[in-house]
């Protein structure tokens, strides 16, 4: 991005507390924001989609991270109320790395705000927040006093925001040609080439699960999941959505209760990921191979190359077969990680925040891929804060709150 684009952006920001930039994936939004903070780093802070890297890595508790940014004891600074609003006070003694994606985002946003930067560039970092935390974060960004002159935000959910925020199109800021070559769109029709599967009924009976003694996240959850359906799992940040996904995929063993698969009591943790494959929020922890081709499982022989190819094409990854997945841009890494989970064709597929970094067109196409999988008799559970995805899917709603799950069928 040229200096001219940066100057245009600064001119657009003048007199505003928050300015959003709209534009599709790979149009150069991130480059513009990074450039904005790189050219004159003094007083300008960049907060990217990988929010965890925005934390210092020097502290072992949330309290210490906040104190590091505040430059003093938390009790004597004015950020305690903001921490309370973002539900961070109950997490003060937790290690920042152990927080859920949404909680890490809240912490990263608050740390950045505490510094009162002249410009805060928030690049798709708010996408993991539930609607309440998103509103609170925008309130904080808007109401921050001091030398902060404004926040520039890119977000793929801008059209879902209830708050009216001035938006400028990237095309108006960047007369330069795109830096990235065009990346193929998702192609849901490829899913029609897959063979149908036979997914079992999964039933949870009074399941309690958590991470250690006295920290149960799910408490006595009872639930029956029917195959060939799409379920959307919704709830506030840190409410246990990912924990439920871990239990269903067999990654986490419940401390109480039992799980029935086709009416037979089963210990899913003996064969994790076989009945329900689980795509984690963070794509980087789920990419292991040196090429996209190997990542999708073409080499393993456990699935047909035909299915892997169809899924590769469905996710628009034809041109990346030989690329190292970990060297690709974030939205493409996310696609590879999603495709790799689906390519093993588990009867149940659980997708945790599949829309992170995806623009509106990609979200709609992704919804169609998910519906295609359900037509092939896969059971699909989607965890997402993207209203657009949930609206297109119109799946059975699973709402999780206070360790309990309740189901509702859309009218």
């Amino acid at each position, binding site marked *: 991005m040229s200096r001219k684009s940066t100057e245009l952006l600064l001119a657009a920001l003048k007199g505003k507390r928050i300015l959003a930039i709209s534009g599709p994936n790979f149009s150069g939004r991130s480059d513009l924001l990074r450039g904005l*903070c790189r050219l004159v*780093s003094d007083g*300008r*802070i*960049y907060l*990217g989609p*990988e929010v965890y*890297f*925005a*934390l*210092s*890595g*020097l*502290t*072992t*508790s949330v*309290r*210490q991270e906040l*104190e*590091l*940014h505040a*430059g*003093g*004891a938390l009790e004597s600074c004015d950020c305690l109320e903001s921490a309370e609003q973002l539900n961070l006070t109950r997490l003060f003694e937790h*290690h920042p*790395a*152990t927080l859920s994606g949404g909680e890490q985002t809240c912490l990263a946003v608050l740390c950045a705000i505490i*510094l009162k930067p002249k410009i805060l560039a928030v690049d798709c970092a708010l996408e993991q927040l539930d609607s309440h935390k998103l509103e609170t974060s925008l309130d904080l960004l808007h109401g921050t006093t001091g030398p902060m002159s404004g926040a520039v935000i890119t977000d793929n959910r801008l059209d879902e925001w209830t708050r009216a925020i001035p938006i400028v199109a990237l095309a108006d800021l960047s007369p330069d040609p795109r830096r990235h070559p065009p990346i193929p769109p998702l192609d849901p029709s490829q899913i029609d080439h897959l063979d149908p599967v036979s997914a079992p009924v999964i039933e949870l009976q009074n399941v309690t699960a958590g991470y250690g003694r006295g920290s149960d996240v799910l408490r006595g959850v009872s639930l029956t999941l029917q195959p060939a359906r799409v379920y959307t799992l919704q709830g506030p940040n840190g409410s246990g959505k990912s924990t439920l996904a*871990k239990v269903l*995929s*067999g*990654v986490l063993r419940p401390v109480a209760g039992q799980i029935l698969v086709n009416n037979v009591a089963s210990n899913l*943790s*003996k*064969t*994790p*990921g*076989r009945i329900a*494959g*689980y*795509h*984690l929020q*963070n794509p*980087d*922890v*789920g*990419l*292991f*191979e*040196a090429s996209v081709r190997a990542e999708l499982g073409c080499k393993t022989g456990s699935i047909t190359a035909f299915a892997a190819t169809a899924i590769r094409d469905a996710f628009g990854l034809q041109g990346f077969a030989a690329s190292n997945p*970990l060297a690709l841009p974030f939205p493409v890494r996310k696609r590879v990680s999603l495709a*790799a*989970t689906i390519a*093993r064709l*588990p009867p149940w597929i659980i997708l945790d925040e599949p829309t992170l970094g995806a623009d509106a067109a990609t979200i709609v196409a992704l919804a169609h891929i998910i519906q295609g999988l359900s037509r092939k008799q896969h059971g699909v559970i989607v965890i997402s804060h993207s209203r657009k995805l949930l609206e297109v899917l119109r799946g059975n709603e699973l709402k999780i709150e206070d360790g309990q799950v309740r189901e509702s069928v859309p009218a």
Partner: protein
Amino acid sequence: MTRVPPVARLATLLILIVATFINLRLQLLLAVIAALAILLATDHLLPKFLKFLAFVQLPMTVMLIAVWGWVAKAPPGMPMGSDPRGGAMFALLISLRLTVLGGAFQLIMLSIPSRLLPATLRGWGLRGEGLVVALGVFAVEPELKLRAEQILVARRARGLLGGSRWAGLKQLPRLLRPLFVWSIRSAVHRAEVWEQRAMLLRVQRLPTESLPFSPFAGAVSVTFSLLWLAVAIAFRWPGLLGTR
């Protein structure tokens, strides 16, 4: 140990190191290890110490005894094959010294509460980049462990790995690529974050007011380490402290 002030903490560690190297008696080293185990238990660090014994010290002891007692069959400075028992005893002495040092290091370093870590490191004279590096060293271990666990979870979630611990162990080489890339990416991103946020200056300003350090705890800690030093000297050079 949590309330021992920084200087007393460092002095205790240094005295323990010196005393351990002076001492030549296996029985004394065993007694010190027992004392350390009790102190580690009071600070809830005994499981870590036992893990250190099982996975580091025990294999090393076996190797040392094999080399000096079975291959060389003599302690250093003696003709090979002349004294297998002496060789084994030398290996045992080295091993027990390392056990004491490992235990002392764990007791002194790992008992620092995270809230008091910056103040303690500053109390040891660390400033600027040195302080940032030291803080990073303390923070990186739990972070690496968590990241490695997340990668194993991701492999399990994709059905690439069984649920048993043995299956997890077999997959360790598979952790390396994502872990390595994560380390590099983390370093690059954080260099930018630290620069943008003037982290070097912020680390200096971490709060130090009303720290619960206890001079009495510091005095007790240093006194005990001095006692161990005196005993070590008395047995090594009996005439030096008038104990002949």
